[in-house]
């Protein structure tokens, strides 16, 4: 009914999947995409986290940096692609840079907000009970901000894949994005569809991992206590 060029049958996509698995191309491309994604996440997320912490705990830093960051945040980072290509060419740096810029802001904003909204009463209590600035940060402020930071992380993961797809389709010689763009050249709609499915799966996998992380580090949170006789 529908021409295979528009939408191939699931069996054809499965076949394309099998061919790509056999040739090993799928794994190579998925691995390289994942590596780029996480390099960008670590760099951008790390910067966002550090800036969020500094601006959250130290008012002068907020006055100095926050409004500039808010301004930059409102620039669609994908609009920087031409500039990034001029700066870095079409090498790895360009893609990692774009991912880093994309994930930095959600992590920054949520870290900052999380730190600012830590219960003042708990901070006061900690001071009365003799905690110094470092202990206060590690035992009260950071754990208090963690639920918010993890929301930022989950949001950042979505942006991470999105950015990477765009970056890889524009300039690349490897990765899932390259695989799909290359398939488009040869009208291999089944491979294009396969690429989309792989992206969806990678995104889902990242989300599942964060949920596991949340359940582990937020075990204290009533929202994560399901069994164990919790009645409320």
């Amino acid at each position, binding site marked *: 009914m529908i021409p295979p060029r528009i939408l191939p049958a699931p069996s054809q996509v499965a076949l394309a999947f099998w061919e790509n698995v056999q040739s090993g191309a799928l794994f190579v491309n998925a691995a390289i995409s994942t590596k780029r994604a996480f390099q960008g996440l670590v760099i951008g997320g790390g910067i966002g986290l550090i800036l969020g912490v500094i601006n959250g705990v130290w008012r002068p830093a907020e006055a100095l940096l926050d409004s500039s960051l808010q301004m930059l945040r409102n620039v669609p980072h994908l609009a920087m692609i031409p500039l990034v290509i001029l700066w870095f060419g079409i090498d790895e740096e360009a893609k990692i840079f774009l991912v880093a810029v994309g994930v930095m802001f959600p992590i920054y904003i949520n870290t900052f907000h999380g730190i600012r909204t830590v219960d003042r*009463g708990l901070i006061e209590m900690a001071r*009365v*009970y*003799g905690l110094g600035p470092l*202990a206060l940060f590690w*035992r009260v402020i950071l*754990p208090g901000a963690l639920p918010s930071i993890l929301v930022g992380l989950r949001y950042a993961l979505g942006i991470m894949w999105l950015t990477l797809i765009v970056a890889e389709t524009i300039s690349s010689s490897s990765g899932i994005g390259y695989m799909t763009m290359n398939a488009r050249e040869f009208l291999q709609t089944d491979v294009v569809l396969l690429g989309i499915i792989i992206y969806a799966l990678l995104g889902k996998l990242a989300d599942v991992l964060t949920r596991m992380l949340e359940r582990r580090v937020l075990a204290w*949170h009533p929202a994560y*206590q399901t069994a164990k006789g919790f009645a409320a």
Partner: protein
Amino acid sequence: MTTAPSFLRAEPGVDRLRGEADTVPFRPKSLGRAAVESQGQGKGLGISFRGVRRCFGSREVLKAIDLDIPAGQFVAIVGRSGGGKTTLLRLAAGLDAPTSGELTISGMPLAGLHGGVRLLFQDARLLPWQTVIGNVGIARTPKWREAAREALADVGLADRENDWPAILSGGQRQRVALARALVSKPGVLLLDEPYGALDALTRVEMHQLTERIWQEHRFTTILITHDVAEAVALADRVLVLRDGQIVLDLPVDLPRPRREHADPLATQFQALILKEV
């Protein structure tokens, strides 16, 4: 400080009434341990207020408070909301500084937080991301685990050390908070209406626990409360704070343990205090 107002001593049948007051009607198992006979060790620290004033803008919340609290005394401060009770307590905790005047703790001027002073808040203020024992040992001093276990046993929560605060009841949370204060062996314990939000039975339980712990450790205690019955049940001395001034300073020398309800003597003390509030 040890004599009751004359009308109470003149009361006929006082001895009989006091005899009755010795029987405590409700004593849960976890609190049943008799007070350790370490009384009178004098580990408490004395607090003095010398002409202490505290203004917020043009509003004078505390007006030249002069007050001496000897080491080991249990003082209750009663008053209406906005009467300056909490301000006074925050000054004693070193969380706030007086506009003029001076506070001393065992003779030394108080400047900021003091390691020997611990404060129990209205809400327990437990860290939700720390287990019960992690909260009690919050300062992570050397050998904190042993000290925290001991304090938890003291408040009857030895078996809950690995629970999250979220699954505890209100009374249990305040007990954890009490254990957290005890772990550092404070010289002064400040109680900012810690039992105001608890149900009546739990509150009586907490009163008995507070009294026993105080008798064991002999720290100086200042209890802020709006519950006159609570003040009479626990304190050696009740102060009424009204419009930033101490308008009544009443020694309460009822024998311990005290009965909270239907004790005519306590009722007379309560009436005396209520007249001034």
